[in-house]
């Protein structure tokens, strides 16, 4: 069938610069550049270009420019080009439209409507170049009070397992298969170097990465891929995945093309089969079922590890989170509207869930109202872009944040949203061995560590400006935030006052 979908991008090659070296041809995994043997010339197939900039980045003579196809439809506020082309795609395929990465629509980004305070005159800002500045965070259940023996000062309270983070940022769950082993290695090495945690996602943990177990969160999802006793016990934290922000209400998808021998072995499934996780966990149809799984995992790990429960941020997050804490979760993870994925139905990614900022504020508030905020740590994710977003999340009440897309961008991701195709030209979201080798784990780990180092310095600068030298004094301290361009209701839910008040 002739496709009506026009090319999204155009590849413009400057003939004066191009030396016909064919690097662009080799680099492009989407066949947008090809070598015409008859004419001995490099040519384009614009319709295949996804705008990932791989060819442009590696062109030795900088001969390539990628530009948007200037094609204009007649202006129509309702029928935008994306709506029209999506219909053509479905009319031609008859299927669910799949996509990758997070929601790219224009829903409000509340981080951009929140501003931080700084000290002036009445109290001094603290200079992180000259004074200690503490970002250490401990995740895990905290008791209401500490008991000690009044005479001997002996500690009578024994804490539930705690996990130390040197900075309040972790890597989001990204499964082996969705991303490559080299990406997992990069994440694991960087997490170990920086004293934080990375997360296996739901695809199991490759044997070669067991040595990073102390910095690893392992996931138990509805498909139970790769879950076995050693997997649970090698980890620092075990996470039950109920949902994710990119596709609340449905399970993970790994297309058969990405299930190579190693992926199959790690997931404990046949090679070349689709790995489709059930939408719910079939042993969790209610909150008391969650409590049973939480305690089953605590038993399996002999109460040595915090159990985390991850949900997508949805309408009743506050009530659900309260139930999760009461069900024994030591850590709860909220993944917001902008949380990304390796593959999701586009309509779900773009229309289901709520912004993480609102979910975070309402969950933190509710848990405090119920007097149980200390019983679980609160981790959020979904579209965190920079250290400003991180510190605002902390001030709204998060204990830590997860970054997924930001970490992949550090590795080279250009957010071209082709993760579901398995053709990632940057070698990240693919299991094609000729592409995965494009990520060198040593360099990848260095890029990730550098990013986190930069963010730590920035967070320390902002904290010092607030007159605060320990992160726990900002956590949930919403007086240090002010809103701009918010409605009264939004400000009330976020628990912040408007700038100027």
């Amino acid at each position, binding site marked *: 069938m002739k496709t009506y979908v026009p090319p999204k991008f155009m590849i413009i090659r400057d003939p004066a610069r191009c030396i016909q070296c064919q690097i662009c041809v080799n680099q492009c995994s989407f066949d947008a550049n090809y070598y015409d043997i008859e004419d001995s010339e490099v040519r384009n197939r614009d319709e295949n270009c996804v705008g990932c900039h791989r060819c442009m980045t590696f062109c030795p003579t900088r001969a390539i420019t990628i530009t948007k196809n200037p094609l204009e439809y007649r202006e129509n506020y309702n029928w935008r080009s994306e709506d029209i082309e999506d219909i053509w795609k479905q009319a031609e395929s008859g299927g669910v439209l799949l996509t990758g990465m997070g929601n790219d629509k224009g829903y409000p980004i509340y981080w951009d409507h929140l501003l931080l305070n700084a*000290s002036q005159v*009445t*109290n*001094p800002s*603290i200079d992180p170049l000259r*004074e*200690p500045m*503490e970002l*250490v965070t*401990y995740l895990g259940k*905290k*008791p209401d*009070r*500490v*008991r*000690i023996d*009044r005479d001997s*000062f002996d*500690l009578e*309270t024994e*804490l539930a397992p*705690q996990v130390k983070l040197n900075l309040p940022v972790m890597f989001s769950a990204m499964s082996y298969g969705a991303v490559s082993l080299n990406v997992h290695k990069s994440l694991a090495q960087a997490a170990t170097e920086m004293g934080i945690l990375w997360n296996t996602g739901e695809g199991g943990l490759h044997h070669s990465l067991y040595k990073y177990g102390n910095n690893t969160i392992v996931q138990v999802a509805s498909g139970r891929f790769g879950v076995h006793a050693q997997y649970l016990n090698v980890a620092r934290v075990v996470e039950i995945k109920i949902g994710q922000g990119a596709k609340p209400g449905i399970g993970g998808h790994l297309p058969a093309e990405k299930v190579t021998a190693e992926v199959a072995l790690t997931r404990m499934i046949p090679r070349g089969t689709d790995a489709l996780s059930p939408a719910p966990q079939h042993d969790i149809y209610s909150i008391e079922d969650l409590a049973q799984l939480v305690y089953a995992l605590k038993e399996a790990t002999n109460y040595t590890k915090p159990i985390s429960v991850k949900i997508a941020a949805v309408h009743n997050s506050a009530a659900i989170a309260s139930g999760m804490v009461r069900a024994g979760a030591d850590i709860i993870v909220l993944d917001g509207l902008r949380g990304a994925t390796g593959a999701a139905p586009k309509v779900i990614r773009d229309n289901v869930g709520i912004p993480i900022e609102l979910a975070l504020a309402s969950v933190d508030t509710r848990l*405090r109202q119920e*007097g149980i*905020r*200390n019983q679980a740590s609160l981790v959020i994710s979904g579209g965190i872009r920079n250290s400003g977003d991180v510190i605002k999340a902390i001030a709204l009440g998060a204990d830590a944040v997860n970054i997924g897309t930001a970490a992949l961008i550090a590795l080279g991701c250009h957010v071209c949203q082709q993760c579901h195709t398995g053709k990632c030209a940057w070698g990240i979201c693919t299991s094609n061995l000729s592409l995965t080798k494009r990520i060198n784990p040593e360099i990848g780990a260095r890029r990730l560590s550098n990013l986190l180092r930069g963010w730590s310095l920035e967070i320390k600068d902002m904290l010092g400006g*607030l*007159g*605060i*030298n*320990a992160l*726990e*004094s*900002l*956590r*949930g*301290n*919403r*007086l*240090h935030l002010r809103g701009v361009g918010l409605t009264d209701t939004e400000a009330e839910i976020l628990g912040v*006052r408007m700038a100027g*008040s």
Partner: protein
Amino acid sequence: MKNIGKIHNPYNDDKVIDACSIFGMMDTSGKLFSGEGIIKAIANMHDRSNGLGGGFAIYGLYPEYADLYAFHIMYLNQSAHNQTECFLKTHFDVIQAEEIPTRPTESILNPPLMWRYFIEVGNHKPEDMSDDDYIVAKVMQINTILEDVFVFSSGKNMGVFKGVGYPEDIAAYFCLEQYRGYLWTAHGRFPTNTPGWWGGSHPFSILDWTVVHNGEISSYGINRRYLEQSGYQCTMQTDTEVVAYAVDLLVRRHGLPMELVAKILAPPFWDEIERQPERQRDLLKTIRQVYGSLLLNGPFTVIIAHHGEMIGLTDRIRLRPLAVGEKGDVLYLSSEESAIHLICSDLDRVWTPVGGELVIGKLGKSSRTGIKKVITGAIR
């Protein structure tokens, strides 16, 4: 319900911001002394306040009524006076009621009526409630519900005197040179966003606990939210209130010794904790993990007092000053060292504690022993 926040924080800022002079003086042998010295000392730090608040706490004040709760109450008008006295008679046995003696003082404008009551709880309280808890509940009730009245002192054998004015003027107004006590604290206030309200001056007090405070706590927002989880209502919207409630929660309700409370309010840095021997490390780490939301961050110095103890503490990087002086059994704490030298020219020892270092004077121990215990490490 009346809104004290509105009276005290009329512009509805995040909180009331103020800076101050503070002074404390304790004879650890329990010998009573007059207020002349401390009045002179706090007056010497006149420039640290701006006339919008001054006050004193005196311990060992009412030996003749030592077993009775002494309420100091301010009334804005006669009807509040009548209404409150009815309330007191209904809920307590009032043994003695009298107007607090004052002298006309040029700089003291529009003072409220000041009365004091010596009362017993008797059989007015529910059986399963302690006297102290009953007193706290009733004081909160008067202060948050009855109009134009404020209870600003409610301990036994101690009293708070405070108002709007420079501390030396407040002292003159209340004739404080005529009183005697074994422990005195004083405060001169420099608020920036309140017009000054008699009830909002320091010391803050509940039962026999008093707090005088100099600082602006950057962690106020989370300290307050944490305390609200434990049922405290921060009606005054000041840092000082947070300090007082934190101490009440940790000492009275959680039963922690002051040495540990200091390590919660001004904890050592994590890397310092990691360097401690195992036992200390576990203790310090646990309390910081559990009570992180009560870390008082940003500049502060407080003098906290109750019967038998005077406690000085600064924030962990000492962004507000505290000087300590010792002479025989007498322990001095002051914002400025000069104020101590002014009233005691031959100190045995004068020193500056490091950030977060607790200084305690305990009754019955010479001040030096009291302090030494802390220097050698609060955590044995």
